[in-house]
């Protein structure tokens, strides 16, 4: 089907030329004139009234208020015209803040850049639509006149005049729709630029939707982590405890087995316990239940205690931040301590978490060999991304031989 559309015969192309859309475009140009004239006359009238009666102060202010109040209605009218004849939705301009305070209402609308853009369109459109109207009407009228004379000269036997007139008629039949299209396209361009949301509005709206969708993604990921933690807790972890317990029973009760058998049972027992410990550490890194129940302080002391090196912990967070922020803060400390254990050759570390106005500050420092490079390795990059997911910032200070300090600033206002 798409191929048939792409390779349209010249005839089909011509037919499309005179389709219903062409007539609707012509009507669009026609209807543009009265609407544009009405809008411009109203606005100019109000402007003139305020100039003439400027000394009264009241009239200009009232005229300004009326102008500001009328503008959206005039714009709505124009948008309806585009929707009806061209089937084009001009996206609405985001409304300035709603307020009952009359003075604030007026000033917010006068200051809004969209007000001035709409005004420009309504003052510009009479010019555009009049020129368009005249051009399109002239083209169609000339076409009819040429056709008429062509027929008349043909009937009266003057073929030398009739043929060029016929050519002119056909030419105009092609040109008139083009003209209508050109004019409507120009009108559409102006309307999109001046009646629709500006690029700033568009960007602001996009930022809002992106923020919303990102928050949803983070919440979903958090929920997923919790679900995995719960599933592992209810399933494999209980089963492993049971397995280790049974092996433990076997190990203590079956003492009269041959030595190789005893050794193998002992090894199986140790393996089961090790698996249990590894699974526990993994699950805890996902999202510890104590973080949900008791908050950062309780969750971090568990982390610090399990580190293979001594960790000093200072947590001063009187008011609990949002769960997403707590999860990120926990993740930062967890990753940082894992990194220190793997790479830093540190003898001790310090974790400090405190509330600083609207920021939650998380600082993890060690006395290791430093030289940590965020560009290398996925650990620090993952950390930066996770911190960025809540609009936080991560700073890494790691001079060679001078230890490493990781600071995360997480907004939680």
């Amino acid at each position, binding site marked *: 089907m798409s191929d048939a559309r792409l390779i349209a015969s010249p005839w089909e192309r011509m037919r499309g030329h005179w389709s219903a859309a062409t007539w609707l475009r012509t009507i669009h140009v026609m209807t543009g004139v009265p609407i544009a004239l009405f809008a411009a006359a109203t606005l100019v009238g109000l402007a003139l009234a305020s100039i003439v009666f400027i000394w009264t102060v009241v009239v200009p202010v009232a005229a300004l208020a009326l102008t500001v109040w009328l503008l959206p209605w005039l714009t709505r009218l124009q948008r309806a015209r585009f929707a009806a004849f061209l089937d084009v939705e001009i996206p609405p301009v985001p409304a300035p803040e709603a307020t009952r305070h009359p003075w604030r209402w007026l000033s917010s609308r006068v200051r809004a850049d969209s007000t001035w853009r709409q005004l420009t369109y309504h003052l510009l459109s009479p010019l555009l639509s009049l020129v368009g109207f005249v051009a399109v009407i002239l083209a169609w009228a000339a076409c009819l006149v040429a056709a008429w004379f062509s027929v008349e000269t043909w009937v009266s036997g003057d073929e030398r005049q009739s043929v060029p007139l016929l050519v002119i008629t056909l030419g105009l039949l092609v040109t008139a729709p083009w003209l209508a299209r050109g004019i409507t396209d120009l009108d559409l361009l102006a309307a999109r630029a001046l009646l629709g949301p500006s690029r700033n509005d568009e960007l602001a709206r996009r930022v809002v939707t992106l923020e919303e969708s990102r928050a949803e993604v983070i919440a979903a990921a958090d929920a997923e982590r919790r679900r995995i933690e719960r599933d592992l807790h209810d399933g494999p972890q209980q089963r492993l*405890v049971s397995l*280790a317990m049974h092996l*433990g029973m076997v*190990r203590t009760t079956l003492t009269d087995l041959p030595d190789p058998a005893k050794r193998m049972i002992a090894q199986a*027992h140790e393996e089961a316990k090790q698996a249990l410990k590894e699974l526990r550490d993994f699950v805890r890194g996902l999202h510890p239940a104590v973080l949900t129940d008791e908050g950062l302080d309780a969750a971090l002391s568990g982390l610090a*205690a399990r580190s293979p090196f001594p960790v000093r*912990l200072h947590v001063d967070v009187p008011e609990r931040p949002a769960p997403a922020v707590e999860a990120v803060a926990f993740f930062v400390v967890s990753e940082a301590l894992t990194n220190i254990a793997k790479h830093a050759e540190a003898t001790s570390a310090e974790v400090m978490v405190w509330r600083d106005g609207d920021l939650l500050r998380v600082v993890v420092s060690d006395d290791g060999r430093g030289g940590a490079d965020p560009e290398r390795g996925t650990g620090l990059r993952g950390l930066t991304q996770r911190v960025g997911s809540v609009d936080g910032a991560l700073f890494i200070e790691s001079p060679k031989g001078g230890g490493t300090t990781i600071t995360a600033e997480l907004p939680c206002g």
Partner: protein
Amino acid sequence: MRVVLAEDSVLLREGLVWVLGAAGIKVVASVGDADGLLRAVDEHRPDLVITDVRMPPGHSDEGLRAALVLRRQYPGLPIVVLSQYVEERYATQLLSTETSGIGYLLKDRVADVTDFIAAVRRVAEGGTALDPEVVAQLLIRRHSDPLDRLTRREYEVLALIAEGRSNLGIAEALSISESAVGKHINNIFAKLGLPNTESDHRRVLAVLRFLKIS
């Protein structure tokens, strides 16, 4: 010894009944949630309670809340809390009223059957059994100031005291003589400014009060 057991995993519950039974400890009731635990204790008046932390309906810290209720309703009832994770915060709550007859252990410890049964008996006799992980977390809390003055060996001894071990237990764990343990303990108590006492659980109380609750 008669025990009421609360654990929502059927597999583990049956395993525990078996392990305890093999050691001559009778499980008079085994239940799967906190409400059931409170009812069973009311009905059977056991010598000891063993409970999981995370149980239906909320799957959060129901078992711990139930243990705290039982501590209030039946002062002196020994309770062993088993959990997939041990948290210093929960330990503090459990120990905040009375430290005698309290156990707080990782479920992993069940795998070392002999040690587990010994811990259960210690708690039943009014002693304390804290998981080494909890003790480590408690020590982290107060790792600064006077604890810095402890030697490495004294620090190890302190951790074992906090777990609820006797002098003999500590001596065995560190492969040193009991009199050496006594000397270390005297040094620790002197450095921390704690009164030297005889009873095992009172020593734990003293240590914990110093570490956290003070």
